[in-house]
């Protein structure tokens, strides 16, 4: 039977790839996310009208993307956890702890002696390990995700403070900075990383058994169990994946700020969850969209960019932000309903 399959697959691969190609992807993503796209376009229009060239400038757009990159990577990971029926409040703290651990004098020493990749690996390792702990607590310890990750939040921040002695750790590893400061065909490396993570996340969620199982685990864990999925192991993998994303985000943040700090990643949990949810992923699990999340992240970053370009006071920004969020969601609903999705 598996040979059959292989043959059939081989035969059908070409058209399948064609159909699921970029245009189809964009098409379907845009279709399901009409409201978000419209909201983003309106926002950009607002930017152009109020700030003209200062908004529509390539540099500015790259700035928006660069700002979106760090929280974007976390949000992609968060999309998996939420789709799988979970939640993680500790992401900001994990980013902080990873950033601190990856920039201690010891790590930087190793990085200078061996290769700057040591910093990256340390951050990924720390992030992944934190995610693993979260996952095990939740899946095997049966601690409610909200509480387990709230506890991790406190513990990871505390640990970050202890390790860093609450000091901002400045990075002096030339290779590291040079690598992440560079651009690829004019696109900053950080933005490239975000794009790769988003694309990878999309493929993982929509084109692999891991992704299918994530939907099942989040949508109906009992059904998933009956279908033979090891729900607990899968849950651990989801949190570990998010932990890795946090580690990567820490690397990006280190590159952006040239520092590791226990204060990094403040309130990332709210930002990431907000981006994911506004993107259309169900907080109750079982339904999730990476494209939506990316739009969600872009909407929030563009919003603060436009505000800043307009020199708006912080208080007015807050009020406007509240109103715009509601409008965006209502828009998304109305448009999604109309298109029957």
């Amino acid at each position, binding site marked *: 039977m598996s040979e059959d399959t292989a043959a059939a697959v081989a035969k059908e691969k070409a058209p399948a790839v064609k159909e699921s190609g970029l245009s189809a992807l964009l098409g379907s993503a845009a279709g399901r996310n009409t409201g978000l796209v419209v909201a983003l376009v309106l926002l950009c229009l607002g930017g152009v009208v109020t700030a003209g060239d200062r908004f529509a400038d390539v540099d500015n757009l790259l700035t928006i993307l660069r700002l979106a990159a760090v929280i974007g990577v976390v949000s992609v990971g968060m999309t998996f956890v939420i789709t799988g029926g979970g939640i993680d409040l500790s992401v900001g703290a994990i980013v902080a702890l990873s950033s601190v651990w990856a920039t201690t004098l010891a790590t930087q020493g190793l990085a200078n002696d061996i290769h700057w990749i040591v910093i990256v690996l340390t951050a990924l390792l720390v992030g992944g390990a934190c995610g693993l702990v979260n996952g095990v607590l939740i899946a095997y310890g049966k601690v409610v995700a909200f509480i387990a990750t709230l506890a991790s939040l406190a513990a990871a921040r505390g640990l970050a403070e202890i390790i860093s002695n609450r000091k901002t750790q400045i990075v002096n590893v030339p290779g590291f900075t040079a690598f992440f400061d560079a651009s690829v065909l004019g696109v900053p490396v950080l933005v490239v990383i975000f794009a790769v993570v988003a694309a990878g996340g999309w493929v993982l969620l929509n084109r692999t058994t891991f992704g299918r199982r994530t939907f099942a685990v989040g949508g109906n864990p009992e059904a998933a169990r009956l*279908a033979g999925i090891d729900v607990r192991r899968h849950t651990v993998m989801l949190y570990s994946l998010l932990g890795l994303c946090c580690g990567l985000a820490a690397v990006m943040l280190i590159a952006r700020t040239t520092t590791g700090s226990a204060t990094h990643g403040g309130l990332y949990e709210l930002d990431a969850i907000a981006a994911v949810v506004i993107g259309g992923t169900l907080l109750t699990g079982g339904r999730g969209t990476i494209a939506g999340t990316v739009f969600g992240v872009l909407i929030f970053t563009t919003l603060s960019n436009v505000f800043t370009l307009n020199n708006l006071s912080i208080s007015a920004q807050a009020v406007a932000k509240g109103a715009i969020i509601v409008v965006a969601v209502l828009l998304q609903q109305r448009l999604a309903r109309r298109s029957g999705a």
Partner: protein
Amino acid sequence: MTAPALLSVRGVVKRFPGVTALGGVDFDVRAGEVHCLLGQNGAGKSTLIKVLSGAHRPDEGEIRWRGEVVSFSGPTAAMRSGVAAIYQELDLVAGLSVADNVFLGHELSTAGFTHRSEARRRTRALLDRLGHPDISPDRDVGRLSVAHQQIVSMARALSLDGQLLIMDEPSAVLDPDEVRVLFGIIRELTAQGVAVVYISHRLAEIREIGDRVTVLKDGRTVATGLDAREVRTPELIGMMTGRVLENVFPQRKPVDPAAPEVLCVRGLTDGDRFAEVDLTVHAGEVVGLAGLVGSGRSEILETIYGARKSAGGTVEVDGRRLRRGSVGAAVRAGMGLCPEERKSQGLLLDQAVYRNITVSSLSAFASFGFLDDRAERDRARGLTEALDVRPAGVERVVRGLSGGNQQKVVLARWLLRECRVLLLDEPTRGVDVGARSEIYELVRELADSGVAVVIVSSEVEEVLGLADRVLVVREGRVVHEGPADEIDESRVLDLVMEGHAA
């Protein structure tokens, strides 16, 4: 048949906190046979299925598979050994497509990447085989009717290519036409040597498709290996219930022609699934809606009840017109609805039985908003005893009840309210023979006390046996209306299927 047992079960025990669901079950299944499991609601059939398919671990007992003692570590292990199950509670994942659900857990993939078009193609083939070219493999399962979800579950079980196929009440949500297709497939499979364990509360089905029968009562085997065609019905019912039942449908009292019109529906249209429905029900009358799955009967009921907004037409109760799309208004006017999907539409699964029963009558138990908890329990206890909900105990959480008993809880809710109009959508789905006649009894009593009853059922026999008047619905239109005793089953089926490629 002297073939060695494919599966043999000895002394299986399964306990839940406070309940022993299985207290010693023995039976054998041979290759190529259809082995039927019979038993009252709560007898332990579904639990047994879950033990066999690796979803539950037995506390005691021995399971032999192809002669060897096995202990499935989980559903995957069972599936690998060739055991496939269709569960009663339709455990599909809303939000995933039909094809994804069919192959969930055994995805077609290379290095973790799914082969979507292949999965779609195979799903298409399975659905065609099940007589449903109308279900798209790409559709979100959450948007399908229960009946179609049942079909998907079957496609899923078939996709596993098992040696033993276990089906827990697959026919409960199907119409006769679909049951016929299902039986065709079962025969095909058994001819290839596949064994089928089949659960149903419909004895007629057992006679038609079954080879041998095992009867469970209170978690124990009371008889096994009976010949499905030979064994007599009263004997079976006696083994299941421990008592003798006659005369399933209660005697009809002629409806008083002068009785007032309680429910009056005129030109009801929803602009999509049905149109121009007229329906009048007098006090004391039971009106049955017959039709195929998907013909729009549920939508009609829900729209009358205000749970869906109508596009046109009026609904009156006792001459007073109801506000469109307001369940509150309908309930205040004395209407009650037993919805079709008890799990998602009917029950508060994690709450006590009595709370599920009193939820629609809270103000009757309250003074100034303060509830009299004890009175609630007492009234609920009375009703659950009358309906024989098992295990007894109004404090029990509904989730732990068997499917049929859950159905009774929903019924009790509206019995408690003493409605003017009662809308029953598949009220006996999953209910055992004993309780069924109790429910019929109750419906009749309610009608006799002046309630107007509308009942939707996929069992034509039930509609004809219970209703005074029958409406046949086809594709959202009423195509026939007349007294129940002036029409027979085959005529109804003809009307129902007219123009339907059967």
